């Protein structure tokens, strides 16, 4: 595949970088990134990845756009209220860059579809807002051997970590199991400064681009915590946990766990 004149102009600021060049831009155009959640994190991630000329972006989200989303979910505009987030996001990405193939999935990521979907992509982005889904993504990426860029936000705080299976600490190396339901507040309950989602999402997108281009050092074995109140980043060194139930030598998890089930039964 060779670039058209317009594409060379569009990506010229990438191509100028010796670490990227035409070769790197081609890698980006052949890459497939799966973004789980088209919300606070997923929007900035997918927006920048679309601008960067990522060949295929997969977007999975079962929600529709709500007025209260617009303070931070920058791919959704006021006329999109009530429309599926995956479709709304796809339209904006393709308006920005028609080169990008956007696959949309208007469903939830579950133990049934997670591995099959993730296996079709090169890099996965965690942009979900609940712990069962964060553990599901972590486990599915490990089992499918796909790099994952984890992200989390709450109030004035944000966190990012890149996970390369079998090379770096996974989410379960740090957090063994999801917290009991209801004890950790969500953004919906506790609030979030909208732009914190942008800061963390753009760092996640940066990590994805670096993983695809194989440049620099990924944010592996390091948990990057951001505090908007003080505008301070803190890096916490982590390492693979020998007692990790997913990636440790005596791992017990060999298939996906449905943490949602008790809640579903309660309905």
């Amino acid at each position: 595949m060779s670039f058209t004149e317009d594409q060379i102009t569009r990506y010229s600021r990438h191509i100028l970088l010796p670490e990227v060049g035409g070769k790197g831009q081609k890698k980006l155009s052949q890459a497939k990134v799966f973004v789980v959640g088209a919300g606070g994190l997923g929007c900035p991630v997918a927006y920048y990845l679309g601008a960067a000329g990522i060949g295929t972006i997969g977007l999975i989200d079962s929600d529709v756009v709500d007025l209260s989303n617009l303070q931070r979910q920058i791919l959704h505009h006021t006329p999109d209220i009530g429309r599926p987030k995956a479709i709304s996001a796809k339209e904006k990405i393709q308006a920005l860059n028609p080169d990008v193939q956007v696959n949309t999935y208007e469903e939830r990521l579950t133990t049934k579809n997670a591995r099959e979907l993730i296996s079709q992509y090169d890099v996965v982005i965690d942009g979900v807002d609940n712990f069962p889904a964060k553990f599901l993504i972590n486990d599915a990426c490990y089992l499918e051997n796909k790099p994952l860029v984890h992200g989390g936000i709450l109030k004035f705080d944000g966190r990012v970590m890149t996970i390369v299976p079998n090379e770096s600490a996974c989410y379960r190396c740090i957090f063994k199991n999801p917290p009991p339901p209801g004890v950790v507040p969500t953004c919906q309950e506790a609030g979030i400064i909208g732009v914190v989602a942008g800061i963390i999402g753009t760092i996640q997108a940066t990590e994805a681009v670096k993983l695809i281009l194989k440049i620099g050092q990924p944010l592996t074995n390091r948990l990057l915590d951001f505090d908007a109140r003080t505008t301070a980043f803190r890096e916490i060194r982590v390492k693979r946990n020998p007692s990790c139930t997913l990636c440790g030598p005596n791992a017990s998890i060999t298939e996906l766990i449905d943490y949602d089930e008790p809640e579903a039964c309660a309905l």
Partner: protein
Amino acid sequence: MQLTINGKVENLDVSTVMDVLKAKDIDPQLVAVEVNTDMIDQENLGVTSLKENDKLEFLFFMGGGA
């Protein structure tokens, strides 16, 4: 003893990790604890002794994204 907790130096009268959690009124269910870059299993918090100048990281769950 003197400890560094989440990057800040503090003087606490404690002997185990669990003592620190109690002193700070932190629910052990809500935090992952690292001592000098080793993750401490929840069941070992009460038997993990601390020494002068240990570095502790309390990593709280951060679940938002949407």
